[in-house]
């Protein structure tokens, strides 16, 4: 089965016949199955869907269809329906090509106009516009015939007519397209001649043999006195054979010829007409950058939401619990059972510990003070909790985007954690600054965590630094580590940010 089937639901139909299928719905399953009217109606519905799909698909001659090299492929060739769409496309090509010659002609006139006077600019504008429309139209026509979706060029860009003309003239794609339209007519002419020969000759023979069955002359006039005269061999079994053979040829040969002709057209269109690979890649890069930014933002929002839920939920309840325990303790007079007092004290201590743990957890997820007050406040708080004395110097006015602040915050936290755990340092420092971009590029926010410890840190897999590098990659950030054995250690993190 061809693997460009679109199975909606349920197993795809094993409908005999080559070529692509659209909705391959087996009767009874797929769209609409069981929706209304019971099994008989859905059976009929499925059959109708399948029939429509087959009809739609039969006109197309997909270039990705079966390979004639295999026996299956050859059999399919015999069974393949005539490529009407392909033939229609090739036949119409001449008309389109001749009309399309107007475009290069217009371009020449416009160039002359430019040289002569200002009138060349509106002429070129018209040419560019017409070129765009014609190109999109031709690509659509090609898509109708072959099903291939080549990328269409984008509309002419520019703030005003002059800018549009300038950008179009500077773009080599414009000239390639004009070249296509110069070639369109000759290629279409050759296509049509070949197609005519391939279809016309067997047709003529078949017609002649048919007529000769009713006529005992050796020479048959096809199409009246002005038409062609075809010599047909005398014995009528031979004439019958000729009829059969030419009918068969009519059936089998056109697809064989249409396909290479279409392939040639596609080749030329790909090379000259469609938007280039670079443009396609540029569009894709834009899409990817946007979607990545959205993904990173969504992750950050999700973390903030979890922090809020924890704050308003579990943390709140634990505080209420500890209040209740405190009130209970307060009511115990001096004559109370000391065991009870002891249990209450323990209960309160456990609750306080739980609250502290939850607080650390949420700080690790998303510290509220970071959103509320920025990197300076948040990093000061982290530094205050560090067992190693840390000085903090933050200067990032204006505030970077929240996702970038979050990444920098966690980078510094990771650095300080490593210092506390491994470095045996006596002092550490954190500096966060904004480095202006060169020549209109965007600013870079740089965070440097330094310590005077024993060094030897590395980005081995599984260490916090490796995870940090991954998270940095999400915002186009970079990590540089300098940690010779014996120290000192310097962790530098840089994140580009669009100036807000």
């Amino acid at each position, binding site marked *: 089965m061809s693997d460009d089937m679109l199975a909606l639901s349920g197993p795809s139909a094993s409908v005999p016949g080559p070529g692509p299928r659209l909705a391959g719905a087996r009767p009874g399953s797929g769209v609409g199955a069981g929706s209304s009217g019971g099994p008989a109606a859905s059976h009929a519905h499925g059959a109708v869907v399948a029939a429509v799909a087959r009809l739609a698909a039969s006109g197309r001659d997909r270039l990705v269809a079966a390979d004639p090299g295999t026996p299956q492929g050859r059999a399919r060739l015999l069974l393949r329906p005539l490529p009407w769409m392909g033939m229609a496309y090739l036949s119409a090509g001449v008309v389109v090509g001749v009309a399309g010659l107007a475009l290069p002609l217009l371009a020449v006139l416009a160039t002359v106009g430019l040289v002569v006077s200002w009138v060349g600019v509106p002429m070129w504008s018209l040419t560019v516009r017409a070129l765009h429309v014609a190109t999109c139209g031709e690509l659509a026509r090609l898509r109708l015939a072959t099903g291939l979706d080549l990328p269409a060029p984008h509309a002419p860009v520019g703030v005003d007519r002059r800018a549009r003309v300038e950008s179009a003239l500077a773009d080599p794609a414009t000239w390639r397209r004009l070249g296509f339209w110069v070639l369109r007519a000759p290629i279409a002419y050759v296509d049509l001649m070949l197609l005519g020969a391939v279809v016309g000759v067997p047709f003529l023979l078949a017609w002649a043999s048919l007529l000769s069955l009713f006529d005992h002359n050796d020479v048959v006039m096809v199409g009246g006195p002005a038409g062609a005269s075809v010599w047909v061999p005398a014995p009528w079994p031979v004439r019958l054979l000729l009829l059969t053979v030419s009918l068969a040829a009519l059936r089998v040969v056109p697809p064989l010829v249409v396909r290479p002709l279409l392939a040639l057209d596609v080749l030329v269109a790909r090379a000259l007409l469609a938007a280039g690979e670079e443009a396609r890649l540029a569009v894709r890069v834009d899409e990817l950058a946007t979607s990545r930014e959205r993904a990173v933002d969504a992750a950050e929002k999700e973390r903030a939401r979890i922090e*809020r839920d924890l*704050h*308003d939920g579990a*943390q*709140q*309840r*634990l*505080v*209420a619990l*500890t*209040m*209740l*325990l*405190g*009130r209970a*303790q*307060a*009511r115990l007079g001096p004559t109370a059972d000391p065991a009870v007092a002891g249990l209450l004290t323990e209960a*309160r201590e456990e*609750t*306080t510990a739980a*609250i502290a743990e939850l*607080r650390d957890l949420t*700080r690790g997820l998303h*510290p*509220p*003070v970071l*959103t*509320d*007050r920025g990197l*300076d*406040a*948040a990093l*000061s*708080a982290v*530094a*205050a*909790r560090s067992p190693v*004395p*840390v*000085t*903090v110097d933050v*200067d990032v006015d204006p505030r970077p985007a929240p996702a970038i602040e979050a990444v920098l915050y966690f980078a510094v936290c990771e650095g300080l954690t490593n210092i506390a755990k491994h470095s045996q340092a006596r002092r550490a420092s954190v500096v966060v600054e904004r480095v202006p971009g060169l020549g209109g590029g965007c600013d870079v926010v740089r965070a440097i965590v330094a310590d005077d410890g024993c060094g030897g840190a590395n980005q081995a897999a599984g260490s916090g630094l490796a995870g940090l590098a991954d998270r940095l990659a999400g915002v186009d950030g970079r990590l540089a580590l300098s940690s010779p054995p014996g120290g000192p250690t310097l962790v530098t993190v840089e994140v580009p940010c669009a100036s807000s």
Partner: protein
Amino acid sequence: MRVVVAEDSVLLREGLVRLLAEQGFDVVAAVGDGEDLLRVVGVHDVDAAVVDVRMPPTFTDEGLRAALVMRRRWPGVGILVLSQYVEERYATELIADNPRGVGYLLKERVADVAEFCAALRRVAGGGTALDADVVAQLLVRSRHVDPLASLTPRERDVLRSMAQGRSNAGIAADLVVGEGAVEKHIGAIFAKLGLSAEGGEHRRVHAVLTYLGEGRA
């Protein structure tokens, strides 16, 4: 003593009201956001307010901003701010240049009922009550790291307690020493830091907090 409670969580609001009532405070009103708080304080005559930082509508720092408004409009009303996180930045903003009648505690400190009520009374009387966590952050954050390093460990303990707003008697009880020893330590601290030790206890707390807050960008 007449107090107002501002806390958006019903669970905690009820808990606070009951706790305070049990300890002999007169809870005049219990509200759920900053605007209501300001309205109530304007109408009633209260001695102190217990205020949560995170309240509607934005759930960021409404309580803090309401507290700052209250300090300007009604400087005689003590404000004790509660939060599930204490951050040095909020403390600095709350204190501004006057730590009089201001407190900032972790919510769970409320469970130590005696301490909490003592802190509330202190704040109502014009004193200070800063959470130990916040003081630790302030100590670290201050630019005057080196002079602080010249203090002995004992003196640092006294300094920390002073910054929390404790009175001399309170410090003496905390560190299990006599009040005379506390006075001596305070004198030494102020000498080493180059501060004037005169004036009452409130003045000295003010001096310490100002000192710790100095040198910030």
